[in-house]
């Protein structure tokens, strides 16, 4: 089936099998490999991207479901080589260790602040419950999000 998805501001088109997962479209058809696959069962959040501005797990969305929509991956966050404040905040606050969960964490964290610009620490922890960090670096991830919200 022919699909048309705006990814990081660029119009992309392809003829895909309906069973193609959005994450595979992003990684394999478009070669944007920052979005990771961790569990592949909608549990870990490594594959989190924005679909029309909201966080979703792209391992559990079909590319055909995103037809006509706008998708943002972590590659699309920087503008003119300047990192998004959330990326900057993860860097400043040591919010990553191996980095595997990071693209998904950053995308989930931006969506979280879009919905709640002024979260408490507890709200950040609950708001990121769909994202696992196998390095267990949660403390600094939470600090990064709070710092980005101007709360540290």
């Amino acid at each position, binding site marked *: *089936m022919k699909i048309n998805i705006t990814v990081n501001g660029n119009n992309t088109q392809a003829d895909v*099998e*309906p*069973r*193609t*997962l959005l994450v*595979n479209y992003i990684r394999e058809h478009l070669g944007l490999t920052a979005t990771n696959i961790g569990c*592949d*069962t*909608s*549990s870990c*959040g490594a594959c*989190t991207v924005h*679909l029309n501005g*909201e*966080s*979703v*797990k792209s391992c*559990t*969305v*079909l590319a*055909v*479901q995103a037809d006509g929509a706008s998708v943002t991956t972590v590659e699309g966050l920087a503008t003119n080589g300047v990192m998004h404040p959330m990326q900057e905040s993860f860097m400043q606050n040591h919010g990553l260790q191996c980095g595997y969960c990071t693209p998904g964490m950053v995308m*989930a964290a931006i*969506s*979280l602040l879009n*919905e709640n610009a002024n979260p408490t620490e507890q709200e950040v922890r*609950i*708001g990121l*419950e*769909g*994202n696992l960090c196998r390095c267990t670096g949660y403390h600094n991830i939470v600090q990064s999000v709070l710092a980005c919200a101007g709360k540290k």
Partner: protein
Amino acid sequence: MIPAPFDYKRASSAAEAISLISEYGQDAKFLAGGHSLLPLMKLRLASPAVLIDIARITDLSYIKDAGDHIAIGALTRHHDVEYSSVLKQHVPLLAHAAGFVGDPQIRHRGTIGGSIAHADPASDLPATTLALGATYVVQGPNGTREIAASNFYKGFLESDLAEDEMLTEIRIPKMNGAGWSFQKFNRRAQDWAIVGVAAWRRGTESGVALVNMDSTPVLATSVSAAIASGSSIADASQQAAAQAHPSDDNNATAQYRTHLAKVLVRRALETASA
């Protein structure tokens, strides 16, 4: 994991969705948010030959004040239920419970209609709408009919919906200031409940339903009967599992589930009565 191949069709109205499902019959399934169906298809626990995508039927995504009740379109996402000011005002228990479904990413995709049609006893919204005395509106080739939530759930992942019927609307009576509580007991963030309780109370009137205590969500009518006849909360909550047949699984034995149900019903009624 990639699902087995299937044909993909898109419906732009309920009528079109029903005519498509009538055309493809048993081999076809509706696709709403996909957050129950796609995981099953990836694991090959379901392999429909045709998916009929109903998520683009935008006129079935709404939350409306309809006088004595709130009408919710079946394609309304958990996120929109959670944040709805109409629901926060008139059916706060449902808005609150929707915020406990999975995690934010799941709530951006999953729909209330998908959750109810899937009829998973471990899901939060079937039991919550049951406690609230909801009516479900379904549409088929021969028109629409209304089903009381208390008559809808027939068995594990089985409901009164016929194969060619679509759930279109959920109607919930306004709570009119009743006290309420939602108790979800799980061991890991984001998980389904090991046992959950949705409850409301207004004086001697109450509604209590249990998550994951049987092959269907359970209306704990003995608890409400005890409250109506003036029993204390402590005594009434001893009746929590009277209508339930819990089973053992990796997370809990039936005995432990029964214990949890009593404790959680007590807590829920204490909160709802405060």
